[in-house]
């Protein structure tokens, strides 16, 4: 039984890792090698020059776009945790006549595909003058109904005793939130933070349209230049893909324990 379990898991793991293997193999080989009729499992000679060529390609500013993505993802992550965390707490814990109305409005946004409201959103943002601007890339993505909903569910289950102790010490809602609730919820904040970071890093359609100036491209937009240019260089394309996922893979492997613990604490159970 145990052997069967490990066998099944190992087979699944191999299947899951194949795409990563392909990205690396294709990114480090020569084009002749990966288009050869017989399969080569690993490039006979790893072409490290591919990195130099990728990073010096003037048409695709890899370094700058990675930095842009990083800045956008960090700001969006912290912005979401701040705004959605506060809102989620308010919705969960502060009794107010219209709280339910606000809650339904938040949940309703989950059903409506963003692609649908895409053009009006662009017009709103461009009216504010935020095209090709960091504000346009970051701010519209801060108001995630999904994150707020998850925060609310989580705070509903937050131990009331802790909050009541804070209340006795004379803290109001604001003080309780910052001094007691947040410090006791680090794991959950970390879990939602990782999810927000990944979502932000991987978003494509919005940055494509809003980040018009080449200096404001994110890494996904840079990747798409490869995909759509009339003369795609397959090797560079895969190498760029490998480079673009590296930061996330590192973050994941480092934080995944945190993530599971954080999700365990979510309110998804209610």
């Amino acid at each position, binding site marked *: 039984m145990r052997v069967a*379990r490990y066998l099944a898991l190992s087979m699944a*793991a191999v299947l899951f890792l194949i795409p990563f293997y392909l990205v690396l193999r294709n990114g480090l080989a020569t084009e002749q090698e990966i288009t*050869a009729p017989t399969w080569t499992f690993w490039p006979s000679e790893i072409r490290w020059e591919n990195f130099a060529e990728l990073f010096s390609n003037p048409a695709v500013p890899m370094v700058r776009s990675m930095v842009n993505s990083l800045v956008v993802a960090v700001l969006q992550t912290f912005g979401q945790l701040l705004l959605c965390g*506060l809102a989620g707490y*308010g919705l969960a814990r502060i009794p107010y006549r219209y709280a339910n109305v606000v809650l339904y409005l938040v949940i309703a946004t989950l059903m409506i595909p963003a692609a649908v409201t895409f053009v009006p959103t662009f017009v709103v943002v461009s009216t504010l003058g935020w095209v090709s601007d960091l504000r346009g890339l970051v701010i519209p993505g801060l108001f995630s109904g999904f994150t707020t909903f998850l925060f609310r569910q989580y705070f509903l289950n937050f131990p009331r005793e802790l909050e009541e102790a804070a209340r006795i010490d004379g803290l109001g809602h604001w003080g309780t939130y910052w001094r007691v609730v947040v410090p006791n919820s680090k794991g959950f904040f970390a879990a939602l933070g990782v999810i927000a970071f990944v979502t932000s890093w991987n978003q494509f359609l919005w940055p494509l349209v809003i980040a018009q100036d080449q200096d404001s491209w994110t890494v996904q937009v840079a990747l798409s230049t490869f995909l759509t240019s009339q003369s795609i260089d397959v090797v560079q394309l895969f190498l760029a893909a490998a480079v673009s996922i590296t930061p996330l893979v590192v973050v994941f*492997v480092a934080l995944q324990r945190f*993530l599971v613990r954080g999700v365990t604490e979510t309110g*998804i159970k209610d």
Partner: protein
Amino acid sequence: MRHGRAFWLFVGPFAIGLLVFVYVPIAWSLLLSFFDARNTVTPTEFVGLRNYVDMLTDAPFLRSLGTFSVFAAFIVPLTFVLALALALLVNQISFMKAFFRSVFFLPTACSYVVASLVWKLSIFNGVRFGLANTVLGWFGAEPIAWTVSTSPPWYWLVLVTLRLWLQLGFYMILFIAGLQRIPQHLYEAAWIDGASRGWQTLRYITLPQLRTTSVAVLLLLLIAAYQAFDEFYNVLGTDRGYPPFARPPLIYLYYTALGSGGQDFGHGSAGAVILTLLIAGVTLLQGRVITR
């Protein structure tokens, strides 16, 4: 009164943003759906329900809604069962647990663009040096044009495996979290009562205890299935547009509203409203059936 002020202190900043960046665009789209809005988002010609009538009688749009209802009926249970299976397997082992969990979760780090690239250009390309065709070649089979062939429709294999690879890990984590919340004493009590360790505990303890997680997972999967866009667009789309097979509703609406040679926001928005209502309807129905 004091509560009101505190509430808005917490919720206000988020609510203002939600209003400006989410609800204004939603209201705007809704408005557009009642106008003849070609190449403009400030239309003047009110047409009542005509756009809705047009979309509800538009064969490609209806076909697309039909196809993706079938797709949802297929991919939702499949993803659900496989994610649960992975979660159960990973949760039961102790050696190398973190390793397996990481491996299955890792694809979540990849964007749809990256995954589509690997699937389209490296695994399922139609020439001999594609991975799938290489493997077929070892068994002496002819190469298959995976993303082109419509009989049999191999492109579904491409799209479904891609989606599973990208999504399974995330839902597996949700299930693992759910499993870890199940109190151990329930299992112990069941074993004392003579339940077998395999099927019976799964059937009578694990699954009922996972019910709330399951409802959330099903909801998310269902919305994701109807809102499919990215991998379809990147795998099957070409510079000549998108083929009339496996065309997600959102892609059809995307080309209606933003296609080259005519942007029709009236019909695009009306279609979006119809899609949203369909998603809401199916979600409610699913909720009914499960919590029955």
